[in-house]
């Protein structure tokens, strides 16, 4: 799946990335580790503040749901014990979206992949890399990276995020499925997604390498 990414696009945050994946455009900023509010402070690890802002209108319960899903994922991937009593604040702003508001798959997928670049740009310690792919099943046919229209015609849709170690997809960090499907279909989809995630990761590495080469151009 081709995507375009630009890192360090915002000056006022520690890390940021702008990602165009499919027809979705999203920008994420990471500030941290910084001083938390007293009620956010955790004695032995960093707390996460995740804010998702929609492309249209004000944020609703839909964005809160996305925030929770993203938090669950990032909590397990950021080495939070490295930053005790600190806060890592992540803002995800959708700019262009391509799905009916009743779906969240494409947006969740874009947010996860964008956060990956923003977190790396902010130099936040991670246990491993991660890559997320989205797919849908329409009449027993598997469609990878569906458009908003394909999504609305599908029987079920799935977002899968793997952690990547040594270039290989290792564990499933997140699996969001909606619609009607059977176990066999899901397993088939997961095995298909592995290669897609790995492919996505080689692209991620390519962009990161370019970025780091640029950053250390004076060396």
């Amino acid at each position: 799946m081709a995507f375009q990414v630009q890192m360090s696009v915002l000056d006022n945050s520690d890390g940021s990335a702008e990602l165009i994946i499919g027809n979705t455009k999203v920008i994420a900023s990471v500030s941290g580790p910084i001083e938390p509010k007293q009620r956010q402070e955790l004695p032995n690890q960093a707390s996460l503040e995740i804010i998702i802002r929609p492309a249209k209108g004000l944020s609703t319960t839909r964005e809160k749901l996305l925030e929770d899903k993203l938090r669950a994922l990032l909590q397990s991937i950021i080495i939070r014990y490295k930053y005790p009593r600190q806060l890592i604040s992540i803002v995800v702003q959708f700019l262009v979206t391509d799905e009916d508001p009743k779906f969240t798959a494409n947006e969740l997928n874009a947010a996860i992949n964008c956060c990956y670049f923003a977190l790396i740009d902010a130099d936040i310690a991670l246990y491993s890399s991660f890559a997320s792919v989205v797919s849908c099943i329409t009449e027993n046919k598997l469609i990878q990276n569906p458009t908003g229209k394909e999504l609305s015609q599908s029987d079920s849709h799935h977002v899968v995020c793997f952690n990547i170690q040594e270039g290989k997809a290792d564990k499933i960090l997140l699996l969001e499925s909606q619609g009607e499907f059977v176990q066999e279909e899901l397993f088939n989809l997961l095995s298909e997604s592995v290669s897609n995630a790995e492919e996505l990761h080689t692209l991620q590495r390519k962009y990161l390498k370019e970025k780091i080469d640029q950053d250390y151009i004076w060396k």
Partner: protein
Amino acid sequence: MSRSIEISENQRKFLLESLKHGFRLTDRPFDHVRDISLYLSPTEYGYVEVSWGKTKLACRVTATVTTPYEDRPFEGIFTINSEISTMASMRFDTSRSNEEILIARIIEKAVRRSNSLDLESLCIIAGEKVWEITVDLNYLNYDGNFIDVGCFAVMLALHHFKKPDISINGNSIVVHDINERQPVPLSILHIPICLTYSFYNLTDKESNIKGEDADEICLLDADLLEELNRDGSLVITLNKNRELIQLSKNGGLPISAQQFLELTFKSMKTIDQLTDLIKTKIKEHEELRYKTENFKLLEASADR
């Protein structure tokens, strides 16, 4: 918790000293705006990204059909959502600060209350169905002057936007897909442009208050460093027809009426430039779209 930006005494003195000698740190004349770069979405209507220097924001216009307010049955609804997240700067936080409210209100006054969008043209069936136009301003990066950039972005997005065509059969309406029928642009009555001037008093405060010598310096389109060190500011909203729409001066350094008139007069040059920029950009974009989407093939009228 909002985190204020701290500026060292050295930095502050350096800025003021250079202003005294007639230079801005960015090597820009006092009455010039920063370089403007614009992105207009080539695929959808009503999405633009605007940056003035490092200040960057995205603006989106959407239209939906709703019922009008009971006391205004002939008018459409127009709202501007402007909420600044911590993405733009850690100064802005989830609770709305005074500064954020001020920015939102000034933009709202300039665009909505000045009646720049013709609300009556948004009426479909009086008292039953009207268009609701919503503008979402998303602030991405903060480097001063959100008011001017915000107002400019809203006007650009409103020009870029086209709402789907409708047809009315008795009491039911049909909203045509934009691929089925050419969408229609909004009817915009005038283009308000906000300009913010920042004032600096480089001599002593007392002589300024007495009005003995008015040698304060005024800068147009201040960046973050200049904005944090200013002694006062003034927002002037004007349009190309030389109509004064809004004046907003919230305390700060007093300025003389004479200087104020001069500023308003001088502003017209910039207003004309910015208005033309909006118009030429939109025109260029329309022509580009006409070509790329092969609208010529869809035209029914014969060439004469």
